[in-house]
């Protein structure tokens, strides 16, 4: 006997976030567990996050009906296997089976940004948009694309790789092996690394540490510290945030010109910094709009937004995926599907 609650899980490079939702669509519990300290193929943080979210909902394993999981990487959704997730060190991991064995309920696995993007379609926050991108900015940078109401995954499920577009051919070496990828300027680890390097250079030339109190208050510097410092007016942090914002703005602009999207929604750990993260992006887009009527037409103000930090787009997509797993009526090809179901099916079959 399975329960009426479903869980959606967002697995990131640093943490696993779980959301437990009831039949009425109300969020009943939420929990976050660090991904650090797990074994190589360890799903302990995922299990712990789901159990903690259930507990927060005043429920237990027996109340759970299904689980949907979003993973940053290449996923075989039919088999429920993570083909490759570089940031997590997973290769051919049968994640759905491992989770199913733990909870005894159906589990679906999908690419995180695609799951988030398809989950956003139909939500009031997108105001009826049919073509949109969910851009995750965190440990890595990637986009999930819904085009004309359909999740676009590409020939091998690799669409949306904007994080490895070249932003600066002379830039830093990326973990993918290329030089100057968007990620080397605007992802969480590189923002932290660039800020630490700039701080070290400033200190080496005699700048007193208390000129940068937030950056020097205690190691290690993270992207979060950088944006807090930027919000407080720290010059080094502002410069790093500005560079990251400018680079992201160029990638978003190219994405909009390529796909003519109605909406780009930013999420992920780094985007969670909110205004200090979005402001440099908006400033750069404003500059482009004032210079070009085409850009003004195709990227109108308000078309690039940051999702509220607690929105949990990936986990929400996971919830939607979990719901479909316990749906009793299979899709009937002769009778057609609603738009939502087309998206839904594309995201996990």
């Amino acid at each position, binding site marked *: 006997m399975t329960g009426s609650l479903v869980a959606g899980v967002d697995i990131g490079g640093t943490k696993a976030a779980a959301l437990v939702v009831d039949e009425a669509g109300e969020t009943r519990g939420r929990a976050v567990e660090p991904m650090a300290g797990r074994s190589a193929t360890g799903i302990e943080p995922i299990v712990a996050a789901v159990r903690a979210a259930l507990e927060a909902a005043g429920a237990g394993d027996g109340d759970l009906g299904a689980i949907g999981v979003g993973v940053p990487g290449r996923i075989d959704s039919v088999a429920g296997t993570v083909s490759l997730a570089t940031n997590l060190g997973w290769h051919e991991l049968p994640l759905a089976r491992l989770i199913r064995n733990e909870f005894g309920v159906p589990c679906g696995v999908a690419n995180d940004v695609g799951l988030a993007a398809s989950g956003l379609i139909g939500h009031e926050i997108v105001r009826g*948009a*049919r*073509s949109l991108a969910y851009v995750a900015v965190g440990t890595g940078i990637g*986009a999930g*694309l819904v*085009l*004309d109401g*359909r999740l*676009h*995954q*590409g*020939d*091998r*499920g*690799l*669409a*949306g*790789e*904007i994080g*490895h*577009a*070249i932003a600066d051919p002379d830039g830093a070496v990326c973990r*993918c092996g*290329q030089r100057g990828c968007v990620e080397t300027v605007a992802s969480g680890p590189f923002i932290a690394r660039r800020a630490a390097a700039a701080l070290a250079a400033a200190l080496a030339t005699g700048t007193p540490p208390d000129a940068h109190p937030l950056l020097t208050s205690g190691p290690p510097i993270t992207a979060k510290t950088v944006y807090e410092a930027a919000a407080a007016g720290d010059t080094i942090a502002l410069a790093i945030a500005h560079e990251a914002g400018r680079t992201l703005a*160029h990638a978003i*602009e*190219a*994405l909009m*010109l*390529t*796909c*003519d*999207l*109605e909406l780009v929604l930013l999420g992920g750990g780094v985007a969670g910094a909110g205004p200090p993260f979005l402001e440099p992006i908006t400033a750069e887009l404003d500059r*482009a709009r004032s*210079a*070009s*009527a*085409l*850009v003004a*037409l*195709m990227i109108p103000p308000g078309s690039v937004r940051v999702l509220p930090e607690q929105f949990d787009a990936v986990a929400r997509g996971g919830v939607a995926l979990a719901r479909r797993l316990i749906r009793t*009526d299979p899709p009937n*090809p*002769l*009778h*057609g*599907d*609603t738009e939502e*179901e087309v998206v839904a099916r594309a995201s996990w079959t």
Partner: protein
Amino acid sequence: MIERSGKATHQETRAHNSRLVLGTIYDRGPISRAALARSTGLTRTTVSDVVSDLIRDGLTREVGRGPSTGGKAPILLAFADDARHLVGLDLGESVFRGAIVDLRGEICSAIEVAVDDRDGNQALERVFSLVDQLLARADRPILGIGIGTAGLIDTTIGTVLEAVNLDWHGLPLGALLQARTGLPVYVTNDSRATALAEHVFGGQRASNLVVVKVGEGIGAGLILGGRLFQGDGFGAGEIGHTTVRPDGDACRCGRLGCLETVASTRAILGQLASHGISRLPDAVAALEAGDPLVRDVVVAAGRQLGLAVAWLIGVLNVERIVLVGSAAEFGEPWLSAVRETMWASALGLLADGTTLEIGRPHADGVVLGATALLMTRELGLNLTGLPDAGLEGAVAGESESDDLEISA
């Protein structure tokens, strides 16, 4: 889910069945009625009824008997490629090209008119005159007119929102031509038309395909998931105006350093002006004669385009890219520069499976793509490889054909 099946009217069902049968004959003919019934899932009675209508309309004909599987040898049905003529127009940068095309994409007759000024009214008069001349040449019933033109086009109403080169702004081209000729008219962007042509007539129907047109400007036509994708405001594929050199030359769009300013044919010729070369044929001849300066300029432009192609395969994970437009005349040296840069600048996993090639001559591509659009809309042929044939899903009812219950 919304239950629609009960609402399909008899007429809708009939139209749906007719499209299904015609599409199957188009793709798989010669084919017997029995095989049609098996392949479509319709009853043999329904198939026979539909086929009678198609034969009456001249779209299908009986072409002899197939091998017997025991009983009487079955009569085979084939699509009548020459049952209709279509008018296709390519309103290009310096030449308007029009053609009479049959239902298989064969060009029966073509006319070219040079366009040397930028007067919007005159351009429209040229279109009218070209259509009149072509209609006079057709000797089959005319299905309609398909047009591919540069610029931002609202395909649903056939209006040219913005075409800088032709000086058209908000021109209801489709409505004007329809009023003048009484024929259905479909208008689309030239890069998109070329993408449709590659998709429909290019041999294999890949479900994802990007056609990049490099001429005066640079634009891409996107076939994604087997459908033409135009974007929220018909602007998808405007890659020519992505910034590649923030401190570069001024672009027509008002910004600096757009891809068009470094990789278009215009940009290449602009750089060769000081070298005494201003026309494309001269540049191509100099390249072929081994002029090192021309080669450097062409290769540099190809490399810039290669970066854009790497971006496209990263964003869309599309494994077939076709390059068309006047720059393709630079041939292998240019193509190699694009390809090498694409490989060097895209994730290995993405670039490995990608094929990059030069497409058929641009003029035919636009003409054929425009007529493919016309055929899909007017005959309901499933040319895009998807059950709903929804090129844009923009015409009410059309994209919902797969919601109809099939009467069997």
